[in-house]
């Protein structure tokens, strides 16, 4: 009798311990399961973002051979060389000029287009599509098309203006011309984001302003701009980042010329690495670009607290 009850107890215990084991197995599985889902993403990011970023930092402080293999550690020598070369300051100057003449008009034009398209009318789908279409265009075909538009003798631009300007070959106009192409590529995205913001403004707000007799410009200034400031913030942010990184159209339209007048930092990095084979200098310049962009982004976020109005 006693033996049997002991056996039974034993069995129960076994059962219980198995249950506990199973439960803790499930618990463990639940604990590690989310990490499984992250594996693919983190393998790719580790191989192609985190590792190369660290390698870029190491390379920027080394000398490399023509095949990009690291030879000696030389500390900050590369940065010293860059910071004392006039070409670098030219690149920085051109980059800031480019960012300014691209980002500001892109945002303003995008905003004006959004204001224009704000009222849903007949055919609004068609012109909304027309306003945003350039964002689907790649830099290569864009460069081909605009090369034709800018053509000194056959181009439609000179034809319309009655001029004979070498838009891409005259160092006075080259940067502006490349900027125009970049603005054209950018406005679609700005338009879409700002239009979404505009259409989210509660109708009552606009109506009450209309009752108060506010004219259109006051409405824009006092209601629309504060209300779309979150989207505006995002759009400015994206445009700054994009403008700092513009490459394809510059490479294809001017190759950084004439006379380095369009040699923005990104183009200069490309040239150092893949024409001059000076990978370590290119890496150092890339890191300088990274720091500059970070500073600009941080400044913008600081401004956000003051200027952006969240509902």
């Amino acid at each position, binding site marked *: 009798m006693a033996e049997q009850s002991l056996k039974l107890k034993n069995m129960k215990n076994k059962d219980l311990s198995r249950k506990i084991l199973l439960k803790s197995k499930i618990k463990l599985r639940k*604990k590690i399961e*989310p*990490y499984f*889902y*992250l594996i*693919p*993403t983190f393998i790719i*990011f580790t191989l*192609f*973002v*985190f*590792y*190369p*970023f660290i390698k*870029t930092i190491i390379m920027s402080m080394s000398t490399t051979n023509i*095949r*990009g293999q690291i030879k000696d550690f030389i500390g900050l020598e590369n940065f010293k060389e860059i910071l004392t070369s006039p070409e670098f300051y030219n690149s920085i100057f051109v980059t800031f000029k480019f960012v300014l003449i691209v980002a500001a008009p892109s945002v303003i034009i995008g905003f004006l*287009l959004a204001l*224009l398209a704000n009222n849903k*009318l*007949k055919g609004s789908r*068609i*012109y909304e*599509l*027309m*306003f945003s*279409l350039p*964002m*689907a*265009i*790649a*830099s*290569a*075909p864009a460069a*081909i*098309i605009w090369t*034709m*538009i800018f*053509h000194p003798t*056959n181009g*439609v631009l000179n*034809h319309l203006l009655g001029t004979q300007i070498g838009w891409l070959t005259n160092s006075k106009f080259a940067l502006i011309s490349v900027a125009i192409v970049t603005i*054209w590529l950018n*406005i679609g995205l700005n338009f*879409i*984001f700002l239009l979404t913001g505009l259409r*989210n403004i509660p109708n009552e707000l606009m109506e009450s302003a209309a009752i108060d007799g506010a004219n259109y410009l006051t409405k824009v200034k006092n209601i629309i701009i504060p209300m779309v400031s*979150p989207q505006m913030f995002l759009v400015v942010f994206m445009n700054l980042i994009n403008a*700092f*990184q513009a*490459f394809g159209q510059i490479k294809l339209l001017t190759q950084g010329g004439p006379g380095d007048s369009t040699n923005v930092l990104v183009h200069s*990095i490309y040239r150092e*690495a893949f024409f001059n084979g000076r990978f370590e200098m*290119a*890496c150092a310049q*890339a890191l300088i*670009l*990274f720091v500059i*962009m970070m500073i600009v982004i941080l400044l913008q976020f600081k401004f956000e607290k003051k200027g952006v109005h969240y*509902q």
Partner: protein
Amino acid sequence: MNKSKRNKLILTILSIFVGLLITFPLLYALSLSFMDQGEMTKYPHKIIPSRLTLENFKTALNTVPLLKFIANSFIVSICVTVGQVITASLAAYAFAFYDFKGKKLLFLMVLSTMMMPTETTVISNFLTVSSWGWNDSLKVLIVPFLTSAMGVFLMRQFYLTIPKEIREASKIDGCGNLKFLFKILIPISKPAIASLSIYVFINTWNQYLWPLLTINNGNNRTVQIGISMLQYSEGSSYSVVLAGAILILIPSILIFILGQKQLVKGMTAGAVKG
């Protein structure tokens, strides 16, 4: 009533006019691509051809293997799109539905990849794939792009809007985690997947710098690099190059037009919430 009607008409006409102004470069290129080569070089310069010809398109297709490039671009874009949808859905699933150690840090790491400009990684990446002997293959254009912070972020934002009750109910019905992901979550997140797909496809199709660096062999070029072959090949006039540009623009423009609504919804979803 009459006045507001007239205002609306004026506004519509103005909008269409501005729309034509913005799309002018495309319409101009389209028009010239149908123009006779002789007419193209004539002075004064014409904008609209007096006679339409398909000669430029034929020459473009015969001068460089443009169709092969288009096929390459399609393969690469589709692989990257499918890959990103899968990896981003999985990662977003973990971030939206689980609590685990280091979740915040890992999510920050994902977002931090958005802050690093391509230039800070592209040189090392180029050296890496060269040392693997991956250059001139299509996989070099696909593998590095099989995930993206944008994708993870977009999918996560969408998952966060899904009521927790759905997850609970499916659990009670004995639905396992993976089953829940594939049988319930992915089907209801079709709108987010659609907008991510359109975004990734167009971006991959339009990629320039990476294929420029890694593909030097004629056969595996993508459209964006292949098109410059046309520019530099002997005897191809500008109308032929424009015809080639039009040909490689068609897929991305078509997808943009068809998917514009989805794309706009998905991209601006995060922006509206602020």
